[in-house]
């Protein structure tokens, strides 16, 4: 295998490891609870939105249900670099 190909492969691996995490803009949130209601694993997304904290929980499936359902555009996905999690 050529060196270039190896580089390419590791680059692909890298992008897979760049997972997303949910980030709120709390100034838009009206605490309606639609997000928490629709999270399949019952993460209290609304409480994160109130505190303005992103959801860095390992359990989060990044299924996007909360992001898609929020009627106020509070939530979005941001890329997480798994190698530097926590340093953001």
């Amino acid at each position: 295998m050529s060196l270039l190909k190896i580089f390419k492969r590791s680059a692909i691996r890298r992008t897979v490891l760049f997972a997303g995490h949910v980030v709120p803009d709390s100034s838009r949130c009206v605490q309606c609870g639609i997000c928490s209601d629709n999270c399949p694993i019952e993460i209290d997304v609304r409480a994160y939105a109130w505190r303005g904290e992103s959801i860095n929980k390992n359990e989060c499936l990044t299924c996007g249900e909360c992001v898609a359902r929020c009627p106020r555009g509070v939530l979005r996905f941001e890329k997480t670099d798994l190698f530097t999690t926590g340093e953001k």
Partner: protein
Amino acid sequence: MKHIIIGTGVAGIAAIESIRSLHNQSDDITVLGDDPHGYYSRPGLAYYLTGEVLDKTLFPKKRADFINLNFKYKKARVTKIIRAEKKLELDDKTLLSYDKLLIATGASALPLTAHGANLEGVVKLDHLEDARRILKLAKRGKTAVVVGGGITALELTEGLRSRGVNVHYLLRGDRYWSNVLDEQESQIVQTRLQEEGVTLHFHSELIEVLGKSGKVIGVRLQDGRTLKCNILAYAIGIKPRMNLARDAELKLERGILVNEFMQTNDPNIYAAGDVAQVYDPITGRSILDSLWGVAREQGRVAGLNMAGQITPYIKSMPFNVTRLAGLTTTIIGTVGYGEDKDVLGIARGDSETWRQLPNAIVAQSGFDVNRLRILVGEKTFIGAVVMGDQTLSIPLQKIIANKIDISPIRDNLLSHNTKIADIIADFWSKQKMVEGNYATR
């Protein structure tokens, strides 16, 4: 130190949190409220009406959250503030003394004054009990008439419609929310309402609610027409709940006047949220808002000041993301002007700032149901309305809030037939590269 907070709305809750954030753990906090349900999401009531959430979902805090905040709660209505003695009187005649008092009593719907307004079937949307009453009526009711304007009138219309009720929406003027939306935006909302099966009546003014055996059976309009209905829902504006402050002779205008530290003319009494008319040192004006985020921030700042951490309230640019006839809409900064015949004064989810239009030029682009309107000032954007696709709403919010210099794209934006969305998206991506991310304020 004894703190008393009147009101269990978001301003009151934010004040408790900020007092506790200062580690003044020995400070005593008592919270009084007359809403039997305490703290819940008022804007969420709209989603309860449409059936998107159950009423139990509207409560953001859990028991443990409240226990952690360590405050006393009493369900009571405050009937008097006795300033000279720094005491409050409650409806059960109990007296409580305070060192620092926060009035966070919110606002309530302006009452309907038409004849017949006290008939069963006449409803408004202030709190959870109102929403429950509406749903109960909707189960039996076949037809409703909605009067008023702003977001709440639309929420009533859509809530009732989604419960299978035939809805007639009466507008006094020739279009919806005319002091915030422009003609095309109103038109988009109206068309979508009609598609949902709502009947719109323009230039129509209710003068009497007709009843039989104490119940609504119809309405009579100024032009002599009558419409049959079993529900009459109204949202003609709100007024701050200022009775306590008025009786205590605090300074008032349209709301309780407070300085930038959320302090009234009595240094031991503060006010925050929908009830407060807040001085803005930058413009020199005192502004009334009815916005969830604003109420939260004012409550937070009031709490800090009450607990001795002197902190000015910095008025952020008012904005609201809402759904108008099913279409996500963000209103940012200053976007309209003049009066709305359907609303007297301020409406829910509204800000007076939106209507103080200085000289500005409008750039707009619209296709299908996505629409973007930007108010272009000398060097900055003054406001924007984003309907439908929200990709640009956060960038615009930041460009406007941070007063970013838009001179490089100004001419381009104002020339004919430009794709303003593309220009702004491009401008924003370059901005981000140059200056990194902007904070919201």
